[in-house]
């Protein structure tokens, strides 16, 4: 397994915007993740779904970015959901109690994502 640069895509419907996270989530993801959440804000969606199905590595600085996004979403009265986490990262979300603040689903469909790709953040 080698390091994989981060990028984020945003797809949204009226109610739900999905941020699809690709690659490693570490301190280097800060800019793209922030831009992706800003795009969610512009969409006006009331729920944001973080799709981790293309993420193999999240470190503590990546956890901190998710905490920040969660804080921003709470400020904006926006619900946060997560899907596609490996069992190991589900465990980490439980240990850190991130799971207390975001519901965790197996995949995007079960989390209610029926949207199409409409916008991107980061490099394709």
């Amino acid at each position, binding site marked *: *397994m080698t390091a994989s640069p981060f990028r984020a895509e945003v797809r949204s419907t009226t109610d739900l915007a999905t941020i699809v996270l690709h690659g490693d989530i570490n301190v280097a993801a800060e800019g793209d993740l922030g831009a992706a959440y800003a795009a969610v804000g512009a969409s006006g969606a009331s729920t944001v779904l973080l799709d981790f199905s293309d993420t193999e*590595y999240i*470190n*503590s600085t990546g956890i*901190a970015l998710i*905490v920040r996004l969660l*804080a921003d979403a709470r400020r904006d009265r926006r619900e946060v959901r997560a899907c596609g986490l490996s*069992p190991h990262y589900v465990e980490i979300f439980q*240990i850190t109690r991130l799971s207390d603040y975001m519901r965790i689903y197996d995949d995007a469909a079960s989390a209610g994502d029926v949207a199409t790709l409409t916008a991107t953040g980061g490099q394709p």
Partner: protein
Amino acid sequence: MTFIESIRRTVGRGAKTVEPDAEPTVAAVPAASQTAPGPAVDIAPTDPLFAYLQAAPGVVDAERLELDSAALAELRGGGVKVIVPLVTQGELIGALYLGPRLSDQDYSTDDRKLLSTLAAQAAPAIRVAQLVREQAVEIQARERLEQEMRVATLIQQQFLPRELPQLHDWQVAAYYGPARAVGGDFYDFIPLPDGRIGIVVGDVTDKGVPAALIMARTQSVLRGEAPRLQSPAKVLERANEILLPEMPARMFVTCLYMILEPETGRVVYANAGHNLPYVRTADEVIELRATGMPLGLLPGMDYPEHEAVLAPGQSVLLYSDGLVEAHDPAGGMFGFPRLKELMAVERPGSDLIDHLLDELHRFVGRGWDQEDDITLVALQRTGGRAVALADHDPDRAGERVLLQVSLPGAAGNERLAMDRVAEAVEPLGLEPARFERLKTAVSEAAMNAIEYGSQNDPAIPVEVEAVVVDDDLVVRISDRGLGGPMGEAEEPDIDKKLAGEQKPRGWGLFLIKHMVDAMEVTTHGTGQTVSLTLHLKGVDDDSQSVPG
């Protein structure tokens, strides 16, 4: 007419101001007394009189000359009536100062012609005399320097080893190339009990005989103390104490002392401000890091001791700064990165030195004036059994080493540390959840080591080691402790973080503690080590340590 009574240097050549007590070469005249010497006035090149005399067509009437010149005022005050410039090939090399005529009459046209003719003939003769004198002084200085260099070289040669040690399974090579001005480089091989051998590479600041004498003294001290004290740290400590009171002002000695156990490849070393040795492993070239103050600077110095093991096929290079600080014609420096790059190519011992010297000569080009001594000592382990470092430490007996690697302390390399450990422990067949937890713990511990211990500096490595001891897997991550010892972190609390009462970061230690069965932080002389333990037996694989 009173005439020249003394010859004295009165003007500087080029842009130099003549020293008031410069050697006498050109003329002055009597003033008040008809037999006493006249004023010995030096004319600075910046004085307007200097330029005036250099361009003057002949004799200059001092009393009628209108110039804002300190020298002119002084000459007039001393009774000088006329000045005769001594110019040859457009260069003012002196002047004759004349006082009043004995008859108190003005200087006649004939007098002036005579003086001009005299000056025109005297000037080249005086210049030739000046040149001969300068050349004699230069030759004398050069001979003195050459003699000094011969003595320095002789001293140096007396103290360098006459032959290289013959070690089974090792190829040893050494090179010493003195600069023209002979610096204070030295190297040595000191036989020690039990077949071990002490290896020294050092450099005395300064050049010539003083540096050679200090080099000789340092080498004597090391040869005397090494067999008695054994430990490199203690040998350097003792050498520092002995040399300190004897060291001339502004001189000191950098020195790396390493003890090699040829049979096992184990090296123990300490450093007194010298260049760090490079080790070429199968994968990379790494530095053997060790710090310490040069010898002879300050009392009571400690020299932390380090260990490494050279496996068969690996080689180590000890060197002085004459190589890395050599310059090419454009002023570029040979530098450490180039040396490291050249080291990376596998070559048997003597070939490595030849290769480095070939590259050096290619770099510096023809007509290179070697600025400093160059010393290279290369040892390559050509055979023998691979012995892990842990095998030498009685406290770590019974450890099975899975991985020992040194990684550059660059941001992002925690991922590399994680991958290397994952690869090394894979054969243990850990349960997938525990395997993933270990990876996260390693990544977090390595990130701490890189961010704090190495301050994200790629040149400051982080060591990662994985061993099996009894029924435990232990991963040790060691850093250089640049950020100081690890403090107690505040327990991260998601509620507080979301409320803005804690920063979003600060999860690293928390995660590590929840990912492994035990975590221990030890601080030592060179930094700190985080040890992560996973029990290999008697664990409930499904257990999760989720806080309530």
